[in-house]
């Protein structure tokens, strides 16, 4: 996952805060620093995290680096999970037997489903890689444009 995950600033001027140095600001800053370390160390390289972020639309729009973090994780989540170990049975009655039966059926259908996944997985991977590349390219371009704009806007000394 991207190591430089920039998160939304807290935006409070603190002018109406009784305590000028609220503990919560420090706590959140510590958490963010720890998360950045964790991202660099690969501690959040987990496809389940990508799936859990699908509803985090606000961060997509409100956090400049969220898309990078998300796409990095998406690369690890693009392949269809073929492992039958994840197959569960919700009904309590004969749960173990039914779950085993389902896994057997899944394995037997491997000859059928393999053709689907062999075609789907490369498409998923290509889409994720293309999107990530596009995002990096566009971000770099925007950065260059902003720098040029800043140079134009700064009054000559």
């Amino acid at each position: 996952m991207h190591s430089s995950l920039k998160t939304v600033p807290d935006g409070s001027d603190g002018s109406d805060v009784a305590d000028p140095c609220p503990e919560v600001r420090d706590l959140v800053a510590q958490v963010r620093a720890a998360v950045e370390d964790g991202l660099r160390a690969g501690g959040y390289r987990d496809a389940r995290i990508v799936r859990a972020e699908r509803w985090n639309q606000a961060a997509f729009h409100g956090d400049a680096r969220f898309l990078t973090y998300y796409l990095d994780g998406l690369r690890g989540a693009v392949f269809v999970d073929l492992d039958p170990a994840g197959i569960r049975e919700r009904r309590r009655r004969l749960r173990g037997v039914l779950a085993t039966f389902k896994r057997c059926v899944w394995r037997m259908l491997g000859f059928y489903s393999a053709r689907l996944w062999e075609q789907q997985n490369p498409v998923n991977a290509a889409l994720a890689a293309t999107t990530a590349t596009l995002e990096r390219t566009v971000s770099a371009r925007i950065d260059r444009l902003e720098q040029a704009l800043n140079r134009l806007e700064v009054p000559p000394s």
Partner: protein
Amino acid sequence: MRPSGVSRIAFVIPRFSEHGTVGGAETLLKCHAQRLAAAGRRVTVLTTCATDHVSWANVLPAGRREVAGLDAHFFPVDPRDAALWERLSLRLTSGRPSDPRDEDLWLRNGWNSSALCRHLASHGAGFDRIVAGPYLFGLVIETVRMFAGRTVLTPCLHDEPFAYLAVVREMFAAAGGLVFNTATEHDLARKLYRLPPDRGVVVGMGIDDFDADPRAFARRAGLTSPYVIYSGRREEGKGTPLLFDYLTLFRERTGRDVKLVLTGNGEVVIPPALRPHVIDLGFVSETEKYEAMAGAVAFIHPSVLESLGIVLLEAWMARTPTLVHACSPVLRRQCVRANAGLWFSNYPEFEAELILLLDQPELRDRLGNNGREFVRRAYAWPAVDRRLLQALTQGGPSA
């Protein structure tokens, strides 16, 4: 508190219920109405026969009656083309410049009550002030159009695409007075509509003092595991699907048996893995809600569209710290002001912060007590009453 010349006040509120809560904005306006009536003002509530924010079906009988100690008049909601409204909503929020004809059609197929507006046209001049809100309702926009100068708009504004519509900008410019819930909401309105700095008053809502037994709910429910709580509408706009996915993953990744308690209304689609660990109380009494809050490790509010977050204040009064989404400037600022809550931008931060609160009960207690002191200081009714009085001095009977 008797603002000179302001004794007859109408409240135009799209939904109004004697019991329970139909919505945060509606609850806020109802509280303001009750406070003014208790202080001797003649308050009349003009509202619709609908209670549900999805169907807007006319379920309450039309007519005049006393509700929650107030003189309330109920009018039917106009028939509307909901499918057309949905299509227009998508078009208007697409980011492209909006067509005034689309805005007008969208308004006319929103939530209107011709009967209420006719009544207001006949009787509006008899009120010193008309308090109307929240902002995204055709009947509120029509109220400001009819009696701009004497209307005090309580918008409950969010930074959402609809806030950028021309018809909304016009309404803010025309309203005689503006009442905001937080300084953050006020700042947003000033930025969006280029309001002068002295336009509008931040009022908020008072929270009555209460003490809730933190062990009562767990005892009643037979809970032995720690739990977090969410109170309010369950819908995508409130971030509840995000909360469910985050908590499901939290349980999987950390192995911690944290339960989720829900109060409020709305259909819930809970991930199968989380379902056995959710205690959905639905609508409960205030006492039950406060007791559930008091025993929670944290109150989690994943919504980014809030103008006040009344439930946050209630959680803090119950001495419970909060976890909010960092993309909500209002809730984030409240957490800083109160020194009683943390904010997260993504799952890793959510996970780390919830672990922090689970593992450090002294931190939880400290943040919770900070929250309670903050609410008592900033949201006591005498302070809110003073600000409400100041807000009513805005505008005048020029329309």
